[in-house]
């Protein structure tokens, strides 16, 4: 076992982990932050997406020890202390960007990372950026609408091609 320490959603945390402990395991099992989901074991679905030092990262494809000393942001830190949803979360609710909600934490974190670098993305840019986030329910259109709305842009009618 080795000691790991990092900042998660602004709070200093630490714990004992094995070499093989994944960041997502540390978040879910040690810190009980179960909002970050695990949807695959092939690094393909994006349900586990968090920010590490401000960058979108798959928490299932990073060792907890690699995150030592970093600043991690997860879905639990997105809403305000009083429960007010973040702009992205509110847009997902307003535009029905979720159904079962399994992919949603990863989608919201991915969208937040996109908007930080690119505050007014085009529809194509949104779709390309969300390439690594798989959703089994929505068919994506409402997610794209939500991200457009969260960026303060007009939400066009998007229909299946």
């Amino acid at each position, binding site marked *: 076992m*080795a000691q790991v320490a990092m900042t998660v959603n602004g709070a200093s945390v630490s714990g004992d982990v*094995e070499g093989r402990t994944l960041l997502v395991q540390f978040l879910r099992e040690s810190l009980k932050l179960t909002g970050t989901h695990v949807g695959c*074991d*092939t*690094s393909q679905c994006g349900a586990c*997406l968090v920010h590490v030092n401000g960058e979108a990262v798959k928490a299932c*494809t*990073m060792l907890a020890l*690699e995150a030592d000393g970093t600043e991690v942001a997860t879905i639990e830190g997105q809403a305000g202390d009083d429960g007010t949803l973040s702009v992205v979360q509110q847009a997902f609710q307003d535009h029905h960007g979720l159904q079962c909600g399994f992919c949603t934490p990863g989608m919201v974190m991915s969208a937040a990372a*996109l908007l930080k670098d690119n505050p007014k993305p085009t529809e194509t840019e949104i779709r390309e950026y969300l390439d690594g986030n798989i959703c089994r329910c929505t068919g994506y259109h409402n997610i794209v609408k939500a991200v457009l709305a969260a960026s303060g842009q007009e939400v066009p009618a998007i229909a299946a091609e």
Partner: protein
Amino acid sequence: MYNFDFVKAGSVADAIAALKEEDAQPLAGGQTLIPTLKQRLAMPSTLVSLAAIPELHGITQDGDTLTIGAATTHSTVAREVAQSYPALASLAARIGDPAVRNRGTIGGSIANNDPSACYPAGALGSGATIVTNDREIAADDFFQGMFTTALEEGEIVTAVRFPIPQAATYQKFIQPASRFPLVAVYLAKYADGVRVAVTGASEEGVFRWSEAEAALDADFGAGAVKGLSVEPGGMIGDIHGSKDYRAHLVQVMTKRAVEALL
């Protein structure tokens, strides 16, 4: 995943010393190695993380030569060589998805030499030099077949040096489920000739299509590769595409690459 010890190396010398441990293995971005460990396809005793070694980071340009540190991520390459070597930036920008690009590194991709990976095509197509802790290896000698390279046990890639071509393009026919190429072609034009590197197609991994290179050296036009074809025999055949289909794609993607540069 089997358990292992984790060592964070602070310098190349540190990493090389730690890799002397039996069954120790380097860890770069982990975007290939961690999924492999999850499937229990590897059982290292120790993972030596290269991510925090300052010498392995960064991109420098000296005249027409671009040197990229092995631990430089795909996102950094996509961003920082967009002006100096746009075709390579575009290759990096289309690897996997944004989260994969934020962690995955050029050194890891080159060392892994997945038969469908993008960077081996970029390196071979550019006639790059692979720099290790010990020596310099021409890309033509470095890639030695599926998941096989010239690297010795305990040797690490420290940088990749690219001669910047007059023009180049990367044509990726994506396999959308994996986001790797089904087949992709990297074509670069240098003063001393055209180089065509193909990934995703051959059972031998990345290769140069010398017939197309000769034809394009003689006459750089879309017609040059029209009558050419690769032998389906040595191609990869799987549920995503048969040998014949991949052989066909090699020609089609090469033609698209030529057209992109006309």
